[in-house]
Structure formats: structure tokens, C-alpha cells
């Protein structure tokens, strides 16, 4: 009885942390409008670029993808990137200002505390971005090529945000050792963009680079959900989820290890 109650209490606590960003985002109408504008802008620019490319190539199919596949893929890739909050910055700021002391005083696990809030932000932003970006892409090239890709893509998206959470948290925790983490953030972001296939599906890369990039975690984060969405073959689904889960175990373990070491370094003065 005691254990059931305690589990329920914990779920209530983390549930409240998940709901909090939803309410915060709903209260900030400006954020919603900006998200819609940014997503619309990106998809519009991509449409211009890829329409020009397909027209110049004089073909409907490049590396097995049509213009419709490419734009819906790019929408899912942008969805991953534009829906995540700036967790690394948040953790780094809390370390620099010392407010991490308040976070640690709460009767909550440090990782789960941030994961719950992160998930709340992602859930809200992903819905807004999907509606805005989806409307633009639908207007430009029509409906998604395969509706049955939606469920596998949602599964892959959740795992990809889990992976991204680990990366962001690891970078944020680096503030325990370095004064400034912005260089790490930029470099991680750009490597993810390139090796994850944010602007260009990995299928368009030179074969050797595509082969290397596909097994790295960046592709599991950005490339995997979009590629599953436009081509939800059973074999692809299984290999994608297996790779994502494998990386999640590795990065989750790395996060736990680093956060334990980092929090041991923490010295709080005053009261």
C-alpha cells in the first residue's frame, strides 16, 4: 500500500512538472505565433530550394525520393529540432547562477525533473509546429505519401527527443567544468544538422558518408523519424527503433554517470 501510494505521488509530481510547460506555453501567445511563423518560413524556403533542384534535374525521383517525400521528410526533421527547448542553456544557467541548489532541494530526481519539463515543452511545441508546417507542406505538395507512417514516426520521434534530451543535458552539465558552454552547443547543433540530415536527407549524401552517418546517434535523432514517416517499411521500423534504443541506453548511462560526478562537485555556500 505504502509503495503504491508513493509511486502514485511520484507520478503526480512528475505529471505536474510535465503539465507546467504546457500551461506556460499556452499563456504566451507570442511564442505560438512565432513558432508558426518560423516553421512556415523554413518550409517555404525549403520548398523553393527543392522545387528548383527537382526542376533542374528534370526528374521526379532523386535517390528514391520525390519532391513530396523530400518536403514531408524535411518537415519531420525540422519538427525534431524546432520543438525542443534550450535545456543545455537552462542547466548551464542554473549552475552559473547557483539556482541549481533549489532544484536539488526538491524531493525529485535531477534527471527526471528536467525530463518531465522537457517533455512538456516538446509536446506543446511539436503540436503547434506540426500543424503549422504540415499545413504549408500540404498546400505546396499535397498530403503525406503514406499515412501508415504516422504511428511509427511518432514512436521514433519520442525516442529521438529522448536522445536529444541526453545530449542537451550532457552539454549543460559541462558548465560544472567550463565557464561557458556556448561553443559546445553550437558545435553539437551543427554536427547534428549535418550528420543528422536536417537540410538534406542522408539518401542524397555520398554513399560512404551516408553509411557512417546512419549508424551515429545524430541520424537516430533527425533522420530516422522523417524517413520512417515517408517510407514506413517494417524492416526499416525495426532497425530504426533498435538503433534508437541502443543509443538511448548508451547516452542515458553517460548522462547518469556525468550527473552523479557533477553533483558530487557541487559546493553550496550560505543559506
Amino acid at each position, binding site marked *: 500500500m505504502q509503495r503504491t501510494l508513493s509511486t502514485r505521488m511520484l507520478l503526480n509530481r512528475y505529471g505536474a512538472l510535465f503539465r507546467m510547460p504546457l500551461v506556460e506555453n499556452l499563456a504566451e501567445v507570442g511564442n505560438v505565433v512565432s513558432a508558426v511563423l518560423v516553421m512556415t518560413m523554413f518550409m517555404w524556403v525549403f520548398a523553393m530550394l527543392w522545387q528548383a533542384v527537382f526542376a533542374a*534535374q528534370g526528374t521526379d525521383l532523386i535517390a528514391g525520393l520525390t519532391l513530396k517525400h523530400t518536403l514531408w521528410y524535411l518537415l519531420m526533421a525540422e519538427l525534431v529540432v524546432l520543438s525542443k527547448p534550450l535545456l543545455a542553456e537552462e542547466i548551464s544557467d542554473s549552475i552559473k547562477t547557483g539556482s541549481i541548489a533549489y532544484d536539488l532541494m526538491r524531493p525529485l530526481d535531477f534527471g527526471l525533473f528536467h525530463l518531465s519539463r522537457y517533455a512538456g515543452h516538446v509536446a506543446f511545441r511539436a503540436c503547434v509546429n506540426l500543424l503549422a508546417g504540415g499545413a504549408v507542406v500540404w498546400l505546396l505538395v499535397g498530403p503525406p505519401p503514406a499515412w501508415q507512417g504516422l504511428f511509427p514516426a511518432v514512436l521514433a520521434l519520442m525516442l529521438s527527443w529522448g536522445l536529444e534530451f541526453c545530449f542537451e543535458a550532457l552539454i549543460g552539465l559541462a558548465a560544472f567544468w567550463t565557464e561557458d558552454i556556448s561553443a559546445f552547443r553550437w558545435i553539437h547543433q551543427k554536427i547534428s544538422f549535418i550528420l543528422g540530415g536536417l537540410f538534406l536527407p542522408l539518401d542524397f549524401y555520398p554513399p560512404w558518408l551516408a553509411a557512417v552517418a546512419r549508424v551515429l546517434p545524430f541520424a537516430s535523432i533527425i533522420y530516422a523519424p522523417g524517413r520512417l514517416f515517408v517510407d514506413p517499411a517494417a524492416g526499416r521500423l525495426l532497425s530504426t527503433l533498435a538503433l534508437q534504443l541502443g543509443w538511448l541506453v548508451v547516452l542515458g548511462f553517460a548522462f547518469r554517470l556525468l550527473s552523479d560526478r557533477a553533483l558530487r562537485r557541487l559546493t553550496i555556500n550560505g543559506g
Partner: protein
Amino acid sequence: MERKRGLGFVGALWRVNLLSAMEYRVPFIMQLGGMMLNNVIYFAFWVLFFDRFEEVQGWTLRDMMLLFAVVASGLGLAMMLFGNCRAIARIVAAGDLDRYLALPRPVLLHVLASRSSVPSMGDFVFGLIWFVLAGDVTAAHALRFLLAVVLSACTFTASLVLANSLVFWLRRSELLADHFLNAMITFSLYPGTLFNGAARVFLFTVVPAGLTGALPVEMLRDFDAATLGWLCAGTAVLAAFALLAFQIGLRRYESGSAIVVRI
């Protein structure tokens, strides 16, 4: 005499900004080098793209290198010299303009030059290196490049002052100003020939990214007086609008009555 004193004042601000940035050597070098590396990795997208497609609407990899060189150096120069151009909305909303109003100096110039962004120095240097790597480094071409960078920097500064000045009417427009900067950078870094008709008009008016990237590169590729004339005229009009918007907006500014001590 007055102008000379004004220049001396701005020069002193820049010197202080640079010295305070360099006070913390390791973060300074990390931010500068990190931004350069960040740009190099970002450019890898276009290397992969042109490896696959060779050309898009008349643009090649070399043109993209020139585009990145002009935009990075232009934006870097603007943020190095007038780093607060992206923060005016935040300064006004927080009532922090008071500290500038109390001093006998031109308010806008004082606000703009009070901050230099360290990562932007990395952008500026990256642009110079990229220009050299793009080839054709003759004296005339280098001169045209420097002119393109200065005009691009003026356009970035003026359009950001204009977008940030909306805060005088909208009260909270920080997010809008941030997204405007993102839109400027995004649209600046794509081949200009992708955008036609209404899109092109949009990129020379509402979000004038055409003046910070595509048009300067057109001037570099095939120099002619008409393109330079359009570029100068566009930049001058934007600067005039920015100045006007800030001056009119300033009359609407109400003090936050915040007591702040600057040391």
C-alpha cells in the same frame, strides 16, 4: 569638432568592449573559435549539396562561399561594432534606456555601441577566410568585398534597429525582434535566384535579406555601377527609416524609474 568628439566617444566604447571581452581569455577564445568552427560545419551542408547537384539556378559552390563570406563578415561587423542593435527591444522593455538618456551623447549611437558580441568576431574572421578560400583575391575584388561587407553590416544594423523599434508601439516585441534576426540570417544564406516575384519583393522590403546577401554577391560576381547604386540606395533608405523610427519611438518612451548604478 562635435563629430570628432563623437567618433572619439564611440572609439572609446569599442575599446572598452574589446578589453572587457578579452579579460576572460579562455571563454573569449572558445567563443571566437567555436563560432568559426560552427560556421565551417554549417557550410558542410552546401559542400554536400553541390557535390550532389553541382548548380542550382546558376549558383555554384564558389558563389555560396562568397555569400557566406559576405553575410558572416557583414553580420559579424554589425554585431562587433553595434552589438546592441539586436537588444534594443529588450533594453526598452526593461526600462534600461534611462541610463543612456541621462548622458549628453546621441542616444541611439550610445546604445548601439555599448555592446560588442565576442562570437561575432568569429563570424567576421570566418568571412574573411572564406573570401580568400573562394579564390580570385585581387586588389579590386578585395576592395569590392570590403564594400559589400560594410554595406551588409549597415543593412543588418539598420533593419534590426527598425524591427526592435517596434517595441515603442507594441510594448513587448522582443520575441518578434529575435525571429526577425533569424529570418534575416536564414534568407540571407540561400541563393538569391531561388526567390522570384512576390518572394523577391518580400526579401527586399519586409525582411531585407536580399540586401545583406544576394545583392552584394551579385555585385561581387559581375560588378556594375547600377547594382552598387541599388545596394547603396537600399541601405540608405533603410538607415533613414531606422533612424526615424527610433527617434519617433523615443518620444513615446516612458521611464521605468529603475535606479541602476553602472560601474
